[in-house]
């Protein structure tokens, strides 16, 4: 089949959804289909532009495509007789973020009219799909709460699970993932002030901006942590990254309100490593159960410091939690063959 994956594009920005789309494309090809990703530019500022962007997606004409898998608003408004929704997210600024400083839709009659427009268009688009899936429970929850629509949670599988075989721990806790203020690696660095002397932390990953990287460097310097905190800031190849995961005692991942389980979480669990996370990390809590598969604590440096101390050292509890994490992850049966079968039904 000729499968077109339809996603938004914010020009010059490449993030998790882009990765997902690219991996979905790769997996479809591996499964014997023809696949391509269509990236539709989306300009949401000012909010008055949004109706034109919706119309734009709706006015594109597809030919020579058997099946569409759509990921985001407004790209999922594109017309096609065989369309499946794999919802990464709707336009949150019209829904759960409405009224907060993160929303560009004014709290006014005009703003209400726009929200109403988006809601109706969403209803139409979702109604056109042969199946509606959400990439994570929070996404499905919002869809149900704000639009009254049901969806099946279909988690995105790991792209190269064979790399995450796990292995003997090397005496450090890994803070992985893209480095920015939302992922809050800075919290983990600060937490090291309150952690036991013997605890070692490695922060490895690409900073979104120079400022994000500098912030961590400054913290290490400020608190004299250079002996115990290693910063490996920059692009990591997959084998390098997997190596860090596989040799860690535990993996710390404390993003604010993550939409989904998080790739870091899934990769750690797949490698049999327990995960440290925060109470407000959102979807991550789907895999991290305190006292079973890892630790969950308040998102503050002191509490995290205590947890880091507990997790450090290849104690049996740590290994037990790691094994539990792997079991839990396996039990979710999140594989590409199963995912593709659902998406192409």
């Amino acid at each position, binding site marked *: 089949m*000729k499968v*077109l994956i339809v996603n938004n*594009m*914010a*020009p*010059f920005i490449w993030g998790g959804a882009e990765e997902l789309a690219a991996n979905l494309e790769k997996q479809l090809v591996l499964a014997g289909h*023809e696949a*391509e990703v*269509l*990236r*539709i*530019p989306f*300009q949401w500022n000012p909010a008055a*532009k949004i109706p*034109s*962007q919706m*119309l*734009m*997606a709706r*006015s*594109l*004409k*597809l*030919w*020579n*495509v058997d099946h569409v898998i759509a990921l985001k608003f407004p790209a999922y408004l594109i017309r096609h007789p065989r369309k499946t929704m794999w919802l990464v997210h709707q336009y949150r600024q019209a829904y759960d973020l409405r009224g907060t400083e993160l929303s560009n839709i004014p709290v006014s009659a005009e703003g209400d009219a726009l929200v109403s427009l988006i809601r109706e268009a969403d209803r139409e688009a979702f109604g056109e799909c042969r199946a509606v899936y959400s990439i994570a429970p929070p996404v499905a929850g919002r869809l149900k709460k704000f639009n009254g629509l049901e969806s099946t949670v279909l988690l995105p599988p790991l792209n190269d699970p064979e790399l995450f075989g796990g292995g003997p721990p090397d005496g450090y806790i890994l803070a992985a993932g893209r480095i920015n203020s939302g992922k809050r690696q800075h919290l983990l660095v600060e937490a090291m002030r309150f952690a036991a002397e013997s605890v070692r932390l490695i922060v490895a990953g690409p900073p979104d901006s120079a400022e994000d990287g500098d912030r961590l460097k400054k913290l290490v310097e400020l608190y004299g942590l250079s002996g115990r905190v290693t910063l490996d800031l920059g692009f990591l190849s997959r084998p390098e990254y997997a190596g860090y995961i596989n040799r860690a005692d535990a993996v710390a991942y404390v993003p604010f309100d993550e939409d989904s389980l998080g790739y870091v979480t899934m990769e750690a669990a797949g490698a049999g490593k327990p995960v440290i996370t925060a109470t407000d990390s959102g979807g991550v809590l789907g895999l991290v159960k305190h006292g079973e598969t890892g630790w969950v604590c308040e998102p503050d440096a002191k509490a995290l410091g205590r947890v880091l101390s507990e997790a450090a050292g290849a104690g049996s509890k740590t290994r037990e939690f790691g094994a539990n994490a792997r079991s839990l992850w396996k039990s979710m049966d999140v594989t590409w063959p199963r995912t593709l079968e659902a998406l192409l039904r």
Partner: protein
Amino acid sequence: MKIALCSTYVPFLYGGARNIVEWLEASLKEAGHAVERIYLPETDDPEFLFQQMAAFRWIDLSAADRIVCFRPQSHLIPHPNKILWFIHHKRLFYDLWDSPYRGFPDDEKHRSLREALHRADSAAFREARKIFTNSKVVSDRLMAFNGVAGEVLYPPVFQPGRFHCRKYGDEIVCIARLEHHKRQHLLVRAMPFTKTPVRLRLCGVGSGNDYPDQLWNLAGELGCRDQILFENRWISEQEKVEILSDCLAAAYIPINEDSYGYPSVEAAHARKAVLTTTDSGGVLELVADGINGLVVEPDAVALAGAMDRLYLDRQEAARMGERAGGRLRDLGISWDHVLKSILG
């Protein structure tokens, strides 16, 4: 600079049109720019023509410092720094209106649509900061139909440094799609008229019809199969470099093509002369008879004569091949020149 390269495509159909965008992207990135590629789908159906055009008008690429637009309808995307590298119009509504390809009736409704399209296109062209085209033919069309001037900017091939010349062998090579308007059948017809042991090598894929079979059958009928090497398959870039490095010369004889075609430029990079015909159109913007190739009448005898001439006078063939490189420089067919033009 942040540069957005914009074009249109049909999903799952691959062709030469996509290459130029990807190659430009590579060159720009090499020069340190941030590049985003915007490929959006569009179809030819007249019923949905303006609806799709509206879609492109709504695209906002203000995140880019500059945009470069290739195939229609991408030229409609608004931007204060819009550069067009114009490859072709929606030709059915332009120069191919009076051709059998049109497919829809020449009635009031479609004539109105054509008039409306010309107006819209002209307005979009006037928005551009600069317009480049891929050949004189296209520039002429742009002026005749839309009253705007387009500077010719010849598309270079990807990584021209890959091509090299190892020797001048016995084969005259044609690496191009096996299609009727590329006229490989004329080359086949020429073979029986050759007097030297010169050989012909035809490489390339067809486009789904039986033209490749026709070539094979024709060679059989004419009894010249033993003079020809048929390779009806996709030729990899590496193979192409190898074949061109060893051949005597290249042949490229499409009928009335808009641009010179990549085969001519690839041969020139490999320092090989190009054999072409008087009615090949854009190819003649590159190939000058006796300078960097031979230009003959599009008939079997003339072509055979040219092939023999190349075979017999290797040194002349080599000299013409050497001059081919110079001709590329003269015409500015290089990525340096392209970048200067696009970024200027």
